[in-house]
């Protein structure tokens, strides 16, 4: 920060992640209408517009919006069917909910600031949000496994294809990795979203310097393009990992 004098170069890449009340300046309580509320609401609106209004026609030859909705549907449906198996299709609405929420929230968070409107807020960049979703998946899958298989679900940790002598060691490793799942599941998404957005903000701060501005803008463009890709990929990764965990719950025997 060589030129960090008053009004000069200011690095505040994390400010975009601040949770602020939308009206007034009070403390953030549980029911306070915050920017989180706004962007969650926008996410719901976009999902409804895309999957309900867009697919309203049920045309034999789809319209553009219907085509997008059908592509998303087919994409996630096939993923659930391929990864979790035929009996995993029952849980397709849950996985679709997670996928479409993350996807739309990620993309909405990439909207540039427009005029006096508040700048975009990426709800999925917050560990509180991703951790809740990861814990929902973790608990849901674990409970499902025990309900379906009883104690037999524990055979997930007892690798019968390995030599008997190292099975206890593997079991310990498997149990640890099982409990680490929600951690990696949530931090992967939040970390990816946060890092990319923070990097954009860092480059944006450099744009204030006259002779670096062109380079800075080119870098922002490049990182932005990468972020568009990452937004999709992270939603996909979250959904496919959910499918993998679901498969373990439905078929714990290796």
């Amino acid at each position, binding site marked *: 920060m060589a030129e960090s004098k008053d009004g000069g170069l200011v690095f505040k890449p994390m*400010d975009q992640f601040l949770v602020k009340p939308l009206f007034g300046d009070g403390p953030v309580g549980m029911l306070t209408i915050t920017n*989180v509320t706004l962007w969650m609401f926008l996410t719901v609106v976009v999902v409804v517009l895309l*999957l309900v209004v867009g697919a309203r026609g049920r045309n034999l030859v789809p319209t553009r919006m219907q085509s997008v909705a059908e592509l998303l549907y087919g994409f996630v449906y096939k993923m659930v069917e391929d990864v979790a198996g035929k009996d995993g299709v029952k849980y397709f609405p849950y996985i679709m909910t997670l996928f479409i929420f993350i996807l739309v929230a990620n993309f909405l968070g990439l909207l540039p600031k427009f005029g006096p409107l508040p700048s975009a807020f990426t709800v999925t960049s917050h560990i509180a949000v991703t951790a809740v979703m990861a814990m929902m998946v973790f608990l849901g899958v674990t409970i499902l496994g025990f309900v379906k298989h009883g104690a037999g679900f524990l055979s997930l940790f007892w690798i019968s294809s390995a030599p008997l002598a190292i099975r206890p060691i593997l079991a310990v490793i498997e149990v640890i990795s099982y409990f680490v799942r929600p951690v990696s599941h949530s931090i992967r998404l939040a970390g990816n979203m946060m890092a990319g957005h923070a990097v954009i903000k860092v480059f944006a701060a450099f744009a204030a310097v006259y002779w670096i501005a062109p380079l800075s803008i080119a870098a922002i463009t490049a990182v932005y393009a990468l972020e568009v890709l990452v937004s999709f990929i992270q939603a996909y990764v979250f959904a496919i990992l959910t499918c993998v965990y679901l498969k373990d719950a439905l078929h714990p025997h290796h």
Partner: protein
Amino acid sequence: MATDTGVEKAASSGGMPQLDITTFPNQIFWLLLALVVIYLVLSRVALPRIGGALADRTNAITGDLAAAEELKQKAQDAEAAYEKALADARAEAQGISAKMKEDVQKQLDVEMAKADAEISAKSAEAQAKLAEIRDNALASVNDVATDVAGDIVAAMGGKADAKAVKAAVASRMKG
């Protein structure tokens, strides 16, 4: 530094806003609300509708394919029927032509036989006529020979006995 104090305070206090636990209840509450709303909208309205549209399309396509298959089968059947009719007609034509040929042959045979019989009858008649002529000629030869022999005898100055001459000629003719 910057003038907006509210933001400044929060930013400088914790470093990462993600780790500010005081905002967690707020985020979690709105997240759960959003997820529940999305889940209800998807499971009640959106997913059945999109799934239905996809199923309709699949059915329409398979239906169209089946109809096309049926039409193709019909066309093949029609072609087979046409081929069969053609073959039948050809066979019939061949049968008619064979029968015709046979009839003609039969008629021809009859005519031939008739002609043969006529010819053989005519030739037998001619043969008979020829034999008669020859017999006549032979008889004439006898008479002429007798006459000539009698004349020769008379010319020789002998007295020709008609009976003797005749006998002599007959014996000569035999030998």
